[in-house]
Structure formats: structure tokens, C-alpha cells
């Protein structure tokens, strides 16, 4: 190719700070987001590290219970709203959605930039709340503790989450309209990669659940500021109403965190098995089903909260229903590997780790959906372990898998493969070491959010903290070698993995316009030709 004729890559389209901060290019906004959420991931991770340090001793090592409560609140708030919820949609989603669709940008590019600014403002306010002042209510903000008794910077935290919520809504709205309106010629719904379907399902949740959280937090702030409100039991209000509203958002939000991960895995498994995705339509509709049924199950967070027996039974039954589509996906991924030509590059290792950890997390979810078992296990470390298996073992693994998989596309450089594989394995081992003991702790009755704990829980806590150290190494490692590869990594070709999908037909990194010529789609996704030799090594 004649270099002068090749369109400039989006990275070379201006090098000034201004060219980045005022860009409406979805790819540059994705990079801005990666910077932001990486920062929040490590701040939240640092809080987690201090939590594990404190729990090394039954008496607590950081001196004050108040600090400890602030630490886990900070960890929860930052990780949920400033890392997990945005993680894949705003980074990989932003970067890839138009590329995968064969579009030039998202439907509303300026709204996209606005959402980043909202996110940053929210982030600054959140940091002020959790670092400057401190919030000690946990990320769940239960009333009346939060509305009347807590002394922390609750209002600032609530404002931060409110703003971040509108950033999420803007992102979700953008994706939905883009997928409806900007598909390339020939890109029918059933020719879209599963990643886009997952993104669509995620966006549905973002758009329909986030406003409920925003309003709930406003009601909470109203109650705290005026000392009166609809959750106040003193005037006949119901604190359980807050929990219902909170979990109406926060349970589907769990699927916001995991669905894009499903999408990433559904791209990676076929690419490294050189085989078509098994049961494409089932995987696609499982995503949509999760997005819808995910809204019907929030009551399972409240089985011992004092809700009616009848509603507990209804929510338990519905909770089982939502596990079915997840099970469908796991079996389909394994089905994809059957008779494939499996390669073990780092993204695939992360993806296999994801299947294992997510399945474990999902199965332990069954314990919590089974009413009587939930009574014993809820509000203990069992729950902590369960959602970390799904969120961290599942989602963060998927995020890393995706970052590695599309790294050459985003940066034009290859990451060092050996280091990538080492990182994947260390994270898998460290993760299990950290969180498996917590299942046992939970069964033995250790409650969540305890600054100090009875002596007999000490051994398992030690094990868990040792695992956390391993995990920390596992997370810092990619930060190191990926940064290194930005400067010294080998140049990547347009399609280093031999993968299908429109994003691989344009150069790495892509030009600002994405495609020199608008692509026309003529076939189904994942048309891997079996036994094809691949040129990536």
C-alpha cells in the first residue's frame, strides 16, 4: 500500500491535548475512558488491598472501624459505578461498536463526548466524597442508616452516582440508536456479532434501570437534607421501599457488568477455536432474555429483609429463570470449542478462565436463590465471594481478555504474548486463592463488613489476604507490559488473529473515518474456515 494514499490513523489525527479533549471520535473517547476507568480500578483496588490487610488480624490492623467502613464503601462505590458498570461498554464498546457495524461513528458523537465529561465530573465528586470526606454506608446506602444516622459525605457520593448515572444513560441511548440506525448495508440483525447484541442488551438495562436509581438517590438526598421523606419509618414510610428501588437498579446492573463480558467471550472463543460460534441465535436471545428477566428478580436480595413470604417465593422462582439463559451461554461456548483448532493466546486463556470462574459464580448464585439456603448464607462472606466470582472472576477477566484481543486494533501494537499468558494464569490462581476461602468463611457464618472478627475465622482470612497479594501482582503486570508495548511492541497487521468481523478489515489502528470504503456485509458472522493456517506467529 502506498503510504501517502493510506488514510492517517486516528491516533495521528492531531497530537495536541485539545485534539483529544474536544474529540468526537468514538475511538479517541474510548481511549479517554480507558484512562479514566483504569485509574478508578486501581484506586478501588488499593482500597480492597487495605481491606484485606486489615483482615489479616482478627482485631483489625488499620486501627479504626470508621476507616474500615469508609474503605469498603469506597471500594464498592468506585468499583461498581466507576469501573464495572462502564468498563466494557464505554471502552471496548465505544471503540468497536461503529467498527463492527461498519459505521463511521456512533449516532450521537457529541453526546458521547458529553458522557465522558459527565463521567469525569462524577468521578471527581466521588473521589471528593470517598477520599476527602469519607462515606461509611456501604455502596448500598440502606435507609434509615444513610438518611438519618450516617455522618459521612453521603450527599456528595449520591450526587456523584447521579451524574455517573446520566453518563451511563447517554452511553446506552447512543448504542441503542446506533445499532438500530447505523448498520452497514447487508448488516442484518442476525449478521451482527454477539458482542453488539450484548451491548444492545446492556444498553437496554442502562437506559431503563439507571433512571430508577437516580430518582431513588434523589429521594434519599431529599430525606437526608430535609429530615423527612418517604422511607422514614417514623411517619409511616417504608425503608424496604428504598431497598426495592435500589435493587430494581442494582440487580440488573449486575447484568450490565456481565453481559458485555459474555459478548467479549463470544467473540474470542470462536476466534481462537477457528470455528463458528455454536448456537448463535440461542446466545443472542439468551442475552436479550437476561436483560429482560434480570429486571424481575431483584427481590432475592431481600429474602431476610422483612418482605412478604409470597413475594419471596415469587422472586425466588424468577431468580432461577434468569440462570437458565446464562447456562445456555456456557454450554454454547464449550460447544464452540468442540472440534475446533484451539490456540492458547492470552485472550483465550483469559476467556477459559472466565468460563470457569463465571460458572462457579453462577452456580453459587443458585445457593442464594434457594430461599432457605439464602437465609443462612446471605449477608455473609459467601455473598461477597459469590459476586466477586461473577464480577471480578467473570467480568474483569472478560475485560482483560477483550483488552488483549483488541489491543493490536486499538494501539497498532502487539503486546508481549508470553507476559500476557503469565498474567492470565497469575490472575486465575490469585483470584481463586483470594475468594474461594470466602465461600467457606461465609458458610461458617462470618458476616460481611466486619472490621474485626472472631479468632476462629483467622486462618481462612490469612489465606484470602495472601491470594489478594497474588491478585494484585496479576493486575499490575498487564499495566506494566501493556504500557511497555505502546512504545516498544511489534507493529500489528490489520488482522493479527485471523479473526472475522468488520473491525479486522480496516488497518490497525483504524483511520479516523474507520473505513476507506463503506463495507457491505454478505455473510453470517464467525465464518471461520476450518484448518486455516493463521499468520500471527
Amino acid at each position, binding site marked *: 500500500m502506498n503510504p501517502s494514499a493510506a488514510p492517517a490513523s486516528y491516533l495521528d489525527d492531531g497530537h495536541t491535548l485539545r485534539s483529544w479533549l474536544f474529540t468526537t471520535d468514538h475511538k479517541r473517547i474510548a481511549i479517554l475512558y480507558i484512562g479514566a476507568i483504569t485509574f478508578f480500578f486501581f484506586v478501588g483496588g488499593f482500597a480492597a488491598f487495605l481491606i484485606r490487610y486489615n483482615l489479616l488480624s482478627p482485631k483489625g490492623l488499620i486501627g479504626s472501624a470508621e476507616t474500615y467502613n469508609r474503605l469498603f464503601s469506597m471500594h464498592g462505590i468506585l468499583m461498581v459505578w466507576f469501573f464495572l458498570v462502564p468498563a466494557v461498554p464505554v471502552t471496548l464498546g465505544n471503540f468497536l461498536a461503529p467498527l463492527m457495524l461498519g*459505521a*463511521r*461513528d456512533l*449516532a*450521537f458523537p457529541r453526546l458521547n463526548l458529553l458522557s465522558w465529561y459527565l463521567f469525569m465530573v462524577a468521578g471527581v465528586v466521588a473521589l471528593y466524597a470517598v477520599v476527602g470526606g469519607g462515606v461509611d454506608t456501604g455502596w448500598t446506602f440502606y435507609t434509615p442508616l444513610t438518611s438519618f444516622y450516617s455522618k459521612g459525605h453521603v450527599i456528595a457520593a449520591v450526587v456523584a452516582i447521579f451524574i455517573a448515572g446520566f453518563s451511563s*444513560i447517554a452511553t446506552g*441511548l447512543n448504542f*441503542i*440508536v446506533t445499532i*438500530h*440506525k*447505523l448498520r452497514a*448495508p447487508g448488516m442484518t440483525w442476525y449478521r451482527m456479532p454477539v458482542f453488539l447484541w450484548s451491548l444492545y442488551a446492556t444498553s437496554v438495562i442502562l*437506559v*431503563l*434501570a*439507571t*433512571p*430508577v436509581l*437516580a*430518582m*431513588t438517590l*434523589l*429521594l434519599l438526598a*431529599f*430525606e437526608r437534607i*430535609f*429530615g*423527612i*421523606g*418517604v422511607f*422514614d419509618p*417514623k*411517619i*409511616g*414510610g*417504608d425503608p424496604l*421501599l428504598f431497598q*426495592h*428501588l435500589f435493587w430494581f437498579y442494582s440487580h440488573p446492573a449486575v447484568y450490565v457488568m456481565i453481559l458485555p463480558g459474555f459478548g467479549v467471550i463470544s467473540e474470542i472463543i470462536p476466534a481462537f477455536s477457528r470455528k463458528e460460534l455454536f448456537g448463535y441465535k440461542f446466545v443472542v436471545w439468551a442475552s436479550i432474555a437476561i436483560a429482560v428477566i434480570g429486571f424481575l428478580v431483584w427481590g432475592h436480595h431481600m429474602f431476610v429483609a422483612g418482605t412478604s413470604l409470597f413475594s419471596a417465593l415469587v422472586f425466588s422462582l424468577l431468580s432461577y429463570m434468569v440462570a437458565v439463559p446464562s447456562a445456555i451461554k456456557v454450554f454454547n461456548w464449550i460447544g464452540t470449542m468442540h472440534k475446533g483448532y484451539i490456540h492458547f493466546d492470552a485472550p483465550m486463556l483469559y476467556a477459559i478462565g472466565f468460563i470457569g470462574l463465571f460458572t462457579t459464580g453462577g452456580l453459587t448464585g443458585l445457593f442464594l436463590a434457594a430461599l432457605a439456603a439464602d437465609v443462612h448464607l446471605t449477608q455473609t462472606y459467601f455473598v461477597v465471594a459469590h459476586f466477586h466470582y461473577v464480577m471480578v472472576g467473570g467480568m474483569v477477566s472478560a475485560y482483560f481478555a477483550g483488552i488483549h484481543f483488541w489491543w493490536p486494533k486499538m494501539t497498532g501494537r502487539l503486546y508481549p504474548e508470553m507476559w500476557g499468558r503469565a498474567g492470565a494464569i497469575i490472575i486465575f490462581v490469585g483470584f481463586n486463592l483470594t475468594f474461594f476461602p470466602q465461600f467457606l468463611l461465609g458458610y461458617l457464618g462470618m458476616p460481611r463488613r466486619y472490621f474485626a472478627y472472631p479468632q476462629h475465622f483467622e486462618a481462612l482470612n490469612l489465606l484470602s489476604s495472601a491470594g489478594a497479594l497474588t491478585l494484585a501482582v496479576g493486575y499490575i503486570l498487564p499495566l506494566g507490559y501493556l504500557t511497555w508495548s505502546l512504545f516498544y511492541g511489534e507493529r500489528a497487521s490489520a488482522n493479527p488473529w485471523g479473526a472475522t468481523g468488520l473491525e479486522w478489515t480496516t488497518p490497525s489502528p483504524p483511520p479516523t*473515518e474507520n*473505513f*476507506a*470504503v*463503506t463495507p457491505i456485509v454478505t455473510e453470517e458472522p464467525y465464518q471461520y474456515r476450518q484448518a486455516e493456517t493463521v499468520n500471527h506467529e
Partner: protein
Amino acid sequence: MSDAEAHEFQFGSAERQHEAAISGMWLFLATEALFFGPIFLSWIYARHADPSAFDAGSRHTALMIGLTNTGLLLASSFTYSVGLACIAFGSRRGMVIWLAIAWALGAAFIGLKFGVEWRMDLKEGLFPGPNFAIHGPARSGAQLFFAFYFFGTALHGLHLVVGLGLVAWIIFQAERFTAERHSPVRVVGLYWTFIDIIWLVLFPLIYLIGRAS
């Protein structure tokens, strides 16, 4: 094929942009509907906790003002739609006049709601708290009602103020719009009517259910 032509099908045509803008607005309104959801659910909870006291609180509201305000918003939705029809048929002048009427009706709502009704309510001591004016058996439930009332109307009023800003913006930008290109007028119109719809739900919840039997 030049770059511009290549991307024509996605961004070039006004029709594409129009479609994206209209459907985007509808999706945003879906978000807004859910945004008001918790207020409606809190009404259900608060009234269920003590129906008679809640209704007693409701009967302290100013029905005539609420009714007038409902009429104002209905009329303004109508005048806005007429303005939209005007621009669709090429009459920019007609659009400006009818939108100005719609704006004035909306502003009158704000004036009545917050300048008159709220002031009356506050003077009567109907803001919940230690100085709440309703005593006796219905005190708790009535406080719950007024917590809902002030929160709900404030939030609706805020949306209406944003709407007023948008309508004013359309009026000042009138030069830009033609019979063929006026999607912002439609998009703002959707939002304007939506605020009306929210009020159509809030109105019976605040003023009527408590008075019905």
C-alpha cells in the same frame, strides 16, 4: 467513491439524522418515564401504609389551582402541536406565534404552581417536619403525602423549566427551520408533551384519588 459518498448512507441524508433524532428522543423519554417510576411507586407505598391519613393530606391541596394548571398544560401541548404543524407547512411566523403561546402557558403553570400554590402550602405549614400544620390522627400519613407532593411537583416543575428553556431556544433559532428541515422542533415537541403526560399522571395522584371514594 469519495469518502463523503461512502458515508452518505449513514450521516449525509437529512432523513437519517431526523430518524435518529426522533427515535433517540423517544428512547430518552422512556428513560424519563422510568425516572418518574420511583415517585409513582412511593405513592403506592405511602398510600398503602395508611390510606385514610394519606387521603386526608391530599384533601389539603388546592384543587382549583391544580385543575387550572392541568388545563394550562393541555392547552400548551395543543398550541405547540399547532406550531409544529405551521412549520411543517412552511409558516415560520405561525410557528413562532403558537410556540410563544405554548411557552407562555407553560410559564403560567410554573407561576401558579410555585408562586401561588406552593406559597400557600408553605404558609399553611404543610411542609412536613416538626412544624407540620395537620395534627391529630392523620398527621403521619399526611406528612408522607406532602413529602410525596413537594418532591413530585418540584421534580415535574424542574422538567418544565428545562422545557421552557428548550422552547425558547427553538423560538430564537426559528430562522434555521424550514418545512423540510425542522427535526429539533419535533424533538422538543415530544419532550414538551411528555411533561404534560407526567402531569396527567401526577394530577389525579395528588388532587383526585384522595377526594374520590
